[in-house]
């Protein structure tokens, strides 16, 4: 029977230490008595208990000293912290294990009866990948998942991915463990300062009670415009604290302000009185906002400009109202987080936080506010006559209500007719644009290596009737999906890296695949080879967690953009370009991505350089992913 004061733990520890010493001594066949770390002699004995495993030896005698609780715990603090995550609807916590969060990790895997399954702990092989996963998930779902990081070292590993997510404005909850009583290099007084310049909000609660409200507040801040990653540093003491009768506080969702009724009615009146109103829809926050934007367009019979081919949470690309419409002579344009517009509702961007958060005065380019005080107006290149600094999505309910209440039967008849005309015109315009695009995409169709246009074209018929998400950035593979595929879902395309940093595609796709798993959705990852090699361990994670993710390598055996930059520079200096491959290409040896994937346990094939073999390979890949088994196809491609 264990003693309540914990002394039995010490006894057991001493016992194991002795046994380990005995085992080691026997293994070494030494005549000398073995010595424990304390120096006391222990006589070898053939009748001793079985030798501990190497892991036990390491843990009990080596550097891996575990931080033992100072008190027995009946109701763990980290169980309550886990309950907060559950209550917030956090589906996944991705992390690479670390002792500074062993308390909450243990709760995530063991809390409750039967043991907890949501949030599910997702095993990441690198902290950057854990955050990239949260980034991909957040973009796809418009709400946070959690990345869990180990102390100063995990936080620094993750910092690049946090930086990207911040640029993207992705809502994300980050928890970093802190154990001041353990390895000192892994702790710091103000750990969050490492990433304060590119997180929206952080806290380092001192007590269990504070930690519960801090997690809630971090979530609230993450989803409140400007949406962004937030960080809670969880001290080990809060994780291991005895909760006693403490209850999880009630979560209060944020109040996100939209336009008031007066402004809503003014805009509604302009939209209704216009002969040819138009909406421009940028990136909204959630699928609900997208649905409301669709509702507004349909109420107005307004044609709509969509950004769905550029990123998530925009208007469905092939909604009948999406397109230039029957006439481009627009007499009133409403912008929702974008222009051009007569009036644009522009919510705050993360740049607005710079003055408050960048206490180290790093002054990251791209985060420096260039426009109005809200940091939003200056980022817009499209002309906007009147920019209203308020969240567009939160304004939609008031706009919908105003349009409904103000529209007359006569206007509704006109609107219905206009809708029909717009739908026909948009269909014609789409087909014309597609015909023009296809005439370009056929170039190099039969070439080896495979043209990037063919890669996208061959994929489309295989996924067009599926619920799909293109999670990887497409800028380096020429973005052919923009013209060939139809982006009708809020998550059809998740856009670029954010800050242009490499090592993002696999992790973000993994996060999108977490969102897709269980929703009968598949994720496509057109994976550039340069980006792949930063954190390929995501391949194992995808297999381990059965993620529906098809990775198709855009393998041009280079960091090709950099190759072109170096060629240009050498050319400007008149030194020739025949050595520009040095440091910019992945040759000698070529990397075999199919075998690499197999090493991580993923089904794969390739390299494929014969374009006639591509379609069948893609079909096998899609079939595999639909079975819940991720797949990789290595395709040797034209550079772009």
């Amino acid at each position: 029977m264990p003693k309540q004061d914990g002394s039995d733990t010490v006894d057991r520890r001493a016992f194991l230490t002795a046994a380990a010493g005995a085992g080691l001594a026997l293994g070494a066949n030494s005549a000398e008595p073995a010595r424990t770390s304390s120096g006391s002699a222990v006589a070898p004995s053939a009748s001793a208990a079985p030798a501990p495993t190497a892991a036990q030896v390491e843990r009990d005698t080596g550097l891996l000293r575990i931080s033992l609780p100072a008190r027995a715990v009946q109701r763990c603090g980290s169980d309550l912290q886990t309950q907060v995550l559950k209550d917030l609807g956090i589906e996944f916590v991705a992390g690479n294990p670390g002792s500074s969060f062993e308390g909450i990790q243990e709760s995530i895997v063991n809390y409750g009866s039967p043991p907890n399954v949501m949030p599910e702990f997702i095993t990441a092989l690198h902290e950057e990948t854990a955050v990239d996963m949260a980034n991909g998930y957040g973009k796809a779902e418009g709400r946070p998942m959690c990345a869990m990081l180990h102390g100063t070292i995990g936080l620094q590993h993750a910092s690049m991915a946090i930086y990207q997510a911040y640029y993207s404005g992705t809502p994300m909850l980050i928890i970093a463990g802190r154990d001041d009583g353990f390895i000192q290099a892994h702790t710091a007084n103000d750990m969050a300062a490492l990433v304060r310049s590119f997180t929206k909000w952080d806290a380092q609660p001192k007590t269990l009670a504070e930690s519960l409200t801090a997690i809630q507040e971090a979530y609230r801040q993450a989803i409140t415009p400007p949406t962004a990653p937030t960080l809670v540093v969880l001290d080990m003491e809060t994780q291991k604290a005895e909760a006693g009768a403490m209850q999880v506080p009630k979560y209060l969702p944020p109040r996100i302000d939209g336009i008031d009724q007066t402004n809503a009615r003014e805009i509604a009146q302009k939209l209704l009185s216009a002969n040819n109103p138009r909406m421009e829809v940028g990136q909204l926050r959630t699928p609900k906002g997208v649905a409301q934007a669709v509702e507004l367009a349909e109420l107005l019979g307004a044609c709509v400009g969509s950004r769905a081919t550029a990123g998530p949470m925009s208007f469905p690309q092939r909604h009948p109202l999406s397109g230039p419409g029957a006439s481009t002579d627009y007499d009133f344009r409403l912008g929702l987080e974008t222009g051009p517009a007569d009036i644009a509702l522009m919510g705050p961007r993360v740049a607005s936080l710079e003055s408050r958060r960048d206490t180290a005065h790093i002054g990251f380019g791209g985060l420096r506010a260039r426009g109005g005080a809200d940091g939003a107006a200056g980022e817009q290149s499209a002309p906007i006559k009147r920019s209203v600094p308020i969240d567009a999505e939160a304004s939609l309910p008031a706009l919908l209500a105003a349009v409904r209440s103000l529209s007359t039967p006569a206007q509704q008849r006109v609107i219905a007719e206009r809708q029909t005309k717009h739908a026909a015109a948009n269909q014609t315009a789409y087909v014309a644009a597609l015909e023009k695009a296809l005439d370009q995409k056929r170039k190099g169709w039969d070439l080896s290596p495979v043209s990037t246009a063919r890669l996208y074209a061959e994929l489309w018929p295989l996924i067009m009737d599926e619920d799909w998400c293109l999670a990887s950035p497409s800028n380096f593979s020429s973005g052919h999906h923009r013209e060939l595929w139809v982006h009708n879902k809020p998550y059809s395309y998740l856009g670029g890296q954010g800050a242009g940093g490499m090592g993002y595609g696999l992790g973000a796709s993994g996060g999108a695949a977490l969102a897709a798993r269980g929703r009968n959705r598949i994720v496509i990852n057109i994976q550039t080879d340069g980006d792949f090699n930063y954190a390929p361990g995501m391949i194992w994670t995808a297999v381990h967690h059965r993620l529906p993710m098809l990775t198709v390598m855009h393998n041009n055996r280079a960091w090709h953009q950099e190759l072109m930059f170096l060629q240009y520079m050498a050319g400007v200096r008149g030194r020739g370009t025949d050595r520009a491959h040095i440091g910019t290409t992945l040759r000698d040896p070529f990397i075999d991505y199919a075998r690499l994937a197999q090493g991580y346990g993923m089904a794969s094939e390739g390299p494929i350089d014969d374009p006639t073999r591509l379609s069948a390979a893609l079909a096998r890949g899609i079939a595999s992913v639909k079975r819940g088994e991720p797949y990789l196809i290595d395709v040797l491609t034209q550079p772009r």
Partner: protein
Amino acid sequence: MKPALNTKAKAVGALCAAMALAVPTFAADNAAAEGDAGRGKQLFHDHGCYGCHGFNGNTGARDLVGTKSPLIADLATFTMFLRLRADQAPLLPSSRMPNYPASALSDAQVRDIYAYVRTFKPDAPAVKDVPVLKSILESASRPKTR
């Protein structure tokens, strides 16, 4: 005006004049025959021309097949384009096209590359002859709901 701009303006003028004289077609060019297309292919790869033009000249940011660019209409213009850019880099309006002085790419090498470039043929199949492209076009005729 700075002297450099004067020089640059002259260079641009010379190139424009050459381009004006050039015939923007892919008619047979005897000059191409002076070069060795096989060696040109190797040079095209070694110098990374494929970076922007594709391994076969018809993909990428600046495909060469079917563009009818006067800059590749004949060897003289092609050579002048490379050289002038090298001497007066970068021409305005600038592009990412590197510059090649003779010290980086000899006249003989330019001839070889040009010979290879002239082997590029607009041999892409018609959309109607590519089942995948045809099916994409056909699918566009029906409204997408997902």
